[in-house]
């Protein structure tokens, strides 16, 4: 069986590789444009996937409301930037304040959602918390729809088109560059937070065993709250940047983006920070190449096919730990 898998894998890779190289050599510029597009798309997924994977890593909960936190971040930035723009403030100040407010509001929502919807269910079966998460997601969507508008709102990009970059803007725009750079920075900062700080150590301890962690004096509730706040902050940054890239938002943007980011997190190995980024990039780039060389109609189908294939060979994702069940 194992041999069969290997032979199948080699054969498929060989065939794809042969046609792939032929296509790439025929038009290398096109290939790199698709690759860069995929990189941007992957970075977009990654900014959202990081929050998913952090929360899952600590309390093994799929926080379905995460996409909505991302949407709230974008909405807050839109409101702040519109109001400040009307007051005629300096655009650099607007950008900073829009980010600050977006992060603040998203964190507040993330913190509150955890306290209301997940904390009371911490000892309940996992399914209850999952349903609670879906309920929270629907609630937030409808709340924003009623409080704001069901229609699309134009989102004027907060990131200017850098002049020095103009000659290359047809290859990759300033916003796309900012997104890729931010993803890398956020990933590194999160890595440092988890590896080298006191709270990071507490997070890792909580992830391993909540009861044991509390026995050695870690305030588990505080650690979990912090995780939600940090995750929400990354979602808010993602929300603002992606809205700048897309140019419009509505109450529903969190759903599709959240779904794709979730797939990416599972693909990379849910619970792993580098895994979320790697999974997002694999998903983004393969979607982009598939659209470019095959049919965009089946882009989503292809995303799920990749997910299924990778989970068959590596059930815990690309960088996921192979956990043996503890007795």
């Amino acid at each position, binding site marked *: 069986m194992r041999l069969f898998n290997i032979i199948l894998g080699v054969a498929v890779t060989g065939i794809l590789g042969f046609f792939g190289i032929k296509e790439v050599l025929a*038009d290398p510029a*096109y290939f790199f*444009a*698709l690759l*860069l*597009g*995929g990189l*941007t*798309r992957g970075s*977009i*997924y990654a900014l959202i996937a990081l929050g998913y994977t952090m929360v899952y890593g600590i309390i093994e909960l799929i926080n379905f409301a995460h996409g909505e936190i991302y949407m709230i971040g974008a909405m807050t930035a839109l409101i702040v930037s519109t109001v400040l723009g009307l007051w005629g403030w300096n655009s650099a100040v607007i950008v900073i304040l829009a980010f600050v407010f977006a992060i603040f509001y998203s964190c507040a929502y993330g913190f509150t959602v955890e306290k209301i919807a997940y904390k009371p269910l911490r000892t309940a079966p996992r399914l209850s918390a999952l349903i609670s998460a879906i309920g929270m997601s629907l609630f937030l969507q409808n709340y924003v729809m009623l409080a704001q508008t069901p*229609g*699309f709102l*134009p989102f*004027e990009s907060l990131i200017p088109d850098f002049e020095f970059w103009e000659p290359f*803007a*047809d290859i990759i*725009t300033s916003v*796309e560059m900012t997104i890729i750079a931010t993803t890398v920075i956020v990933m590194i900062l999160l890595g440092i937070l988890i590896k080298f700080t006191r709270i990071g150590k507490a997070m890792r301890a909580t992830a391993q065993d909540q009861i044991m962690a509390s026995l050695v004096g870690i305030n588990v509730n505080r650690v979990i709250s912090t995780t939600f706040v940090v995750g929400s902050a990354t979602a808010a940054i993602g929300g603002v940047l*992606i809205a700048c*890239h*897309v*140019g*419009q938002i*509505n109450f*529903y*943007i969190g759903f*599709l*983006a959240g779904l*794709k980011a979730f797939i990416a997190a599972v693909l990379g190995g849910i619970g792993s920070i580098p895994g979320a980024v790697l999974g997002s990039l694999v998903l*983004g780039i393969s*979607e*982009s*190449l598939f*659209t*470019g060389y095959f*049919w*965009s*109609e089946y*882009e*989503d189908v292809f995303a799920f096919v990749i997910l299924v294939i990778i989970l068959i060979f590596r059930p815990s994702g690309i960088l996921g730990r192979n956990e043996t069940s503890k007795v």
Partner: protein
Amino acid sequence: MKSFFKTLALALLILIGFTAPSFAGDTIKIGVAGVISGDLAPYGISSVRGVEIAVDDLNAKGGILGKKVELLIGDDVCKPEVAVNVATKLVSDGAQMIVGHVCSGCTIAANKIYKDAGLLVISPASTNNDLTLKGEQPNFFRTISYDGAQADLMTSFVKNNLHAKKVALIHDKGDYGKGQMELARKYFGKLGGVEIVLFEGITTGAVDFSAIVQKIKRSKADVTMWGGYHSDASKIVALLKKKRVKTTFFGGDGIYGSEFVALAGKYGDGVYATGPNETSSNPLHIALTKKHQKKYNEDPGTFFFNAYACVQALANAAEKAGSLDYTKMRAALFANKIDSPIGRIGFDKNGDVVGAGFSVYQVQNGKYVQVN
């Protein structure tokens, strides 16, 4: 020989029998048929009301050819088999011209009866392509655009006005968007001379469309046609501009409106779209809306204005022809234009309305401006 005369006499008798009603009586009878009960009733009712108000106006001015107009109303419940019965009844009751039906299936079924009886039919609502384009219904006219009218207009504009050699057709995989692009593909096939270099569907609401934009760039399409709504369209338009793809963006009525312009912002300028003709500033349109509100206490329904125009067209043709003769009236319908609440309309050689329906617009300085 004797039997030949017998047959001839019989035939003549039958002929007289058929044509007798049109000479008899001192009123002119217009048959109105459509769906007036059931789920789709609002459509038929709006059309009946249009005819009623038009006939009131007509009678107030002295009717057609000096005779008052009388209405015969039939309900086909949007079922072709019922429509045939309704048609037979209208003909035997002496209807001299028909406004109807509403559902295309009913119109197709019923028109066999009307055609044999030599009656002119004019529909305010049936949009099926085959009714006029097949050329099998010479007695049939309509005051509404046919299903393919928009695709037809788009494709001929792309070929003749934008002089495109290569087009990319992109849609959102939905019934409306994909259907529109499939029609466009069909019409390009008929037109010839334009190569379709790309036919693709995209995922609506996706965070990033750069792959499809690169694909459009690689295809070197002169014009990118879009079947879908304004939200996805504005994302693609913005990205096309940012990536400096030299292609003209052209959408259907799904992107016609201020919502698209607001979303696309500075990237929207230069985009083409087809949209329904502007009629709300038409004085007759305003007057009729008020009349309808006064009589029925609500705003006019979907086909109200089209139905009003049907009666206007028939009355005008009869006056111009000077009689109710089929051939003369038919010629008069083709030859004359009328000022109706849906614009100044006439009919093309197929019996399709000209002057109402769709126009091409372009975004110029943040506003849609009519260009054709």
